[in-house]
């Protein structure tokens, strides 16, 4: 097991990339701690799978290095990296039995028969396939096949990392939850470094200690679920995490006060003077309706989602959502007030760190 | 490194395939004196006389026309009868369907030599001997089963919901088949047509047996003329090269479908 370092890493599928747009992955420097449980989150086509394949060695990066511990692995073939990876769609060896499938990675690594049997039985119990161990893999349902793929990923104990590429896409919801819990306990027991690619934020937030959000070939934030929620480093993180996402309003910012369409808004810290396209962002959870002073709010819709209600409306023609407790009266025209400590300031989509007080 | 090895293997294999063909082309561009008196790897005395002989003499070049006529006729007939049958096999169960399907395939397995004589008598008795249609029909013996087989494979890949949706939308069967279904399996039709063309074009035993003068295929003319005029190697080689050209053209047009086509829709 080892810490994985990406140094000045970038990747382009073009032979001679000219502009930034030619890069599937833009230059990045990141360290993935040994034993961490990471979720890699982002919309489709943002480079998640490319990044994963670079770590496992299936794709050679066009620029930069990949290090395992202190060893440069950039040019090492997949087999030498000793990594497990589970793909989005089931990959099973049709002509083998379930048992042979699960034993395959161990056999190839030259483990002894007794050990293989013990591990296979253990994993089979974990994925609930004990009874079908001697069946041929051909003819199993897609989700049974995917469980075998997952099992093959988890069967080796001494791998450097286990990578999951949206592994639960084809699994039915009940089993999804069950398997995720199993993965989590596997991580607790063995402390493998795990990287879990998904576009489902619930999956990411429940699985990982650290969530890595990617957008357009870039890692825009790497942080705990709480950090992503409270201080999104990029407007995309604000929009992508949370339901509904963060509200954004164009504003001008001077010191600890923002102005939206001439209406002043109190900020939680001093930002000096901010240039570029300036926006303020506030989570719907920290917005409340008020009769007193605030931004004018035009209500469009109220959604009841169980324990709370989502109130959708507009402020100066821009969408503004807020989460209100059950039972609170909603007037047609009102004003909204922000919990001022929770307002973030963005310049050209990137978060601006305040001066002094509440540094991120 | 594995890429190098692969490239080397492919190079050797393609060399093995192309050298005999090159030799034929080489000979077709030589004079007969050069062919028989000296041994040269390429023509020293480049000549197009051999081609000129063929392209100016109707008894030669009509052979190509004849071959093309019956090949195209056969392809059209095979595909048009195979389409509805393949649809039936891919969509419905009916009395005796499996036996029928196998029986069709057995005709693909019949040695043409077995049929040569009876065909000769059959087509003579109905007055079709030495016509293009006779050869086209005879080649249906092995092309129709193949076309049904290939098309059935492709049609099985089209979900049945498409048919049902079309009927719900008020399409009649012929209109649905021509407007909606056929475009969906266009590549399958192309593949089937390619195979019909191929097997009809290369077959000689039946086409030679069933023709005498008017519909004689080029391949048969080749054998006869050469044996009559002694050893005109140059013309023989030129005629051979000319028979390769239609095949090469067809391959070139379907090059993007070849890989898929050879799977016969079954992968």
């Amino acid at each position, binding site marked *: 097991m080892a810490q994985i370092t990406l140094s000045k890493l970038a990747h382009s599928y073009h032979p001679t990339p000219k502009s930034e747009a030619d890069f599937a992955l833009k230059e990045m420097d990141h360290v993935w701690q040994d034993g961490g449980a990471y979720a890699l989150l982002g919309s489709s086509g943002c480079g998640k799978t490319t990044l994963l394949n670079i770590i*496992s*060695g*299936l794709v050679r990066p066009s620029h930069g290095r990949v290090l395992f511990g202190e060893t440069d692995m950039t040019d090492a073939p997949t087999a030498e990296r000793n990594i497990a990876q589970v*793909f989005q*769609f089931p*990959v099973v*060896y049709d002509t083998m039995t379930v048992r042979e499938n699960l034993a*395959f990675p161990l056999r*190839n690594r030259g483990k002894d028969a007794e050990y293989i049997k013990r591990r296979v039985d253990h994993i089979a119990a974990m994925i609930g396939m004990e009874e079908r161990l001697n069946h041929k893999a051909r003819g199993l349902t897609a989700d049974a096949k995917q469980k075998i*793929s997952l099992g*093959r990923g988890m069967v080796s104990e001494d791998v450097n990392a286990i990578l999951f590429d949206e592994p639960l896409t084809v699994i039915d919801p009940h089993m999804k939850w069950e398997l995720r819990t199993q993965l989590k306990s596997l991580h607790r027991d063995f402390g493998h470094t795990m990287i879990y690619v998904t576009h489902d934020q619930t999956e990411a937030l429940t699985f990982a200690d650290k969530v890595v959000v990617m957008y357009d070939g870039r890692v825009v934030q790497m942080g705990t679920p709480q950090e992503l929620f409270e201080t999104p480093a990029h407007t995309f993180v604000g929009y992508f995490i949370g339901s509904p996402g963060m509200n954004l309003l164009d504003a001008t910012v001077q010191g600890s006060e923002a102005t939206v369409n001439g209406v002043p808004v109190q900020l939680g810290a001093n930002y000096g003077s901010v240039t570029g396209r300036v926006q303020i962002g506030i989570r719907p959870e920290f917005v409340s309706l008020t009769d007193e002073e605030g931004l004018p709010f035009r209500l469009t819709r109220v959604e009841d989602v169980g324990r709370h209600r989502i109130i959708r409306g507009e402020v100066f023609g821009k969408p503004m959502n807020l989460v209100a407790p059950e039972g609170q009266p909603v007037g047609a025209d009102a004003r909204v007030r922000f919990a001022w400590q929770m307002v973030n300031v963005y310049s050209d989509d990137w978060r601006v760190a305040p001066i002094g007080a509440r540094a991120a | 490194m594995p890429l190098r090895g*692969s490239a080397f293997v*492919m190079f050797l294999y393609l060399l*093995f*395939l*192309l050298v*005999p*063909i090159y*030799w*034929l082309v080489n000979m077709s561009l030589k004079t007969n004196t050069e062919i028989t008196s000296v041994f040269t*790897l390429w023509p020293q005395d480049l000549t197009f006389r051999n081609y000129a002989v063929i392209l100016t003499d109707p008894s030669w070049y009509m052979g190509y026309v004849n071959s093309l006529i019956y090949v195209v006729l056969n392809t059209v007939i095979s595909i*048009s009868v195979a389409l*509805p*049958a393949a649809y*039936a096999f891919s*969509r419905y169960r*009916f009395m005796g*369907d499996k036996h029928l399907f*196998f029986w*069709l*395939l*057995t*005709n693909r*397995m*019949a*040695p*043409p*030599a*077995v049929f*040569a004589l*009876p*065909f000769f008598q059959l087509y003579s008795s109905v007055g079709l001997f030495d016509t293009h249609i006779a050869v086209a*029909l005879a080649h249906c*013996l092995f092309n129709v089963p193949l076309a*049904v087989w290939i098309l059935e494979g492709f049609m099985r890949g089209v979900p049945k919901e498409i048919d049902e949706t079309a009927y719900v939308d008020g399409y009649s069967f012929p209109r649905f088949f021509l407007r909606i279904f056929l475009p969906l399996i266009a590549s399958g039709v192309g593949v089937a047509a390619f195979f019909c063309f191929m097997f009809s*074009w*290369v077959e000689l*035993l039946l086409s030679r*047996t069933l023709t005498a003068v008017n519909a004689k295929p*080029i*391949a048969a003319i080749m*054998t006869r003329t050469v044996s009559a005029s002694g050893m005109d190697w140059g013309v023989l080689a030129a005629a*051979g090269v000319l*028979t*390769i050209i239609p*095949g090469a053209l067809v391959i070139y047009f379907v090059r993007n479908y*070849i890989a898929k086509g050879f*799977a016969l829709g*079954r*992968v």
Partner: protein
Amino acid sequence: MDKTQNNKAWFLVLPVLLLVAFSAVIPLMTVVNYSLQDTFGNNEFFWAGLEWFEDVLHSDRIHAALGRQIMFTAIILAIEVPLGIFVALNMPKKGFWSSLCLVLMALPLLIPFNVVGTIWQIFGRVDIGLLGHTLAWLGVDYNYTSNALDAWLTVIVMDVWHWTSLVALLCYAGLQSIPEAYYQAAKIDQASRWSVFRYIELPKMQGVLLIAVLLRFMDSFMIYTEPFVVTGGGPGNSTTFLSIDLVKMAIGQFDLGPAAAFSLIYFLVILLISWVFYTVMTNLDKRDGV
């Protein structure tokens, strides 16, 4: 797929049925008719019963031809199938080179059979052919018109030249259907090259390989034109395969009765073996469809 029971589907099959009946059933009846009768010319026929069948079954000449045929088919299958797989594994997967290989490989398949024969007839000649000339120059005593072994070698190499591409292209199509993720998973699992072949590539090629073997079996068992052009069945009878013998008998000697009986037995043998293949194949299909 769930198929609906519908006997009206027979109407869709009817054109095929009529066409094939016309070009297969009627001629086949003629053959059966001949096989049971004898003639002394003048279109007078006499009932001969199963006499011809007995003759054919006991004919040394036909036994010898059958023996040669089986040997020929076995040899070319043993060469073409492994070689075809090997070539398919080495073909470029995509891009310009892959199209080029496909086009060049398909070329021999579209050459009329007798032209294939002609190409090799010329190619192997010691006086004017590249192969024959080169061999002679190397000091090899090679002559396919007088030496039976040389004739066999020439016919086999010709068949390999002609048909290996068919096997290779079928296998290539099978290989193309394997998703990239399978190869990636194999790398992750640290599988050896042999394991990748054995557990990923071979199972995926199984279906097309059976088609390839079936086609090559049938076609090589009926081979006529190519060896006939090259060797004329000789030297002696050394390359006289079943079809060549049959045509000699039916059209050369006009022995209609024995030829017809021979035809039927010949056809039945091919049918029987093909039926075994077909059954295996459809069973495989069913197993995959689960």
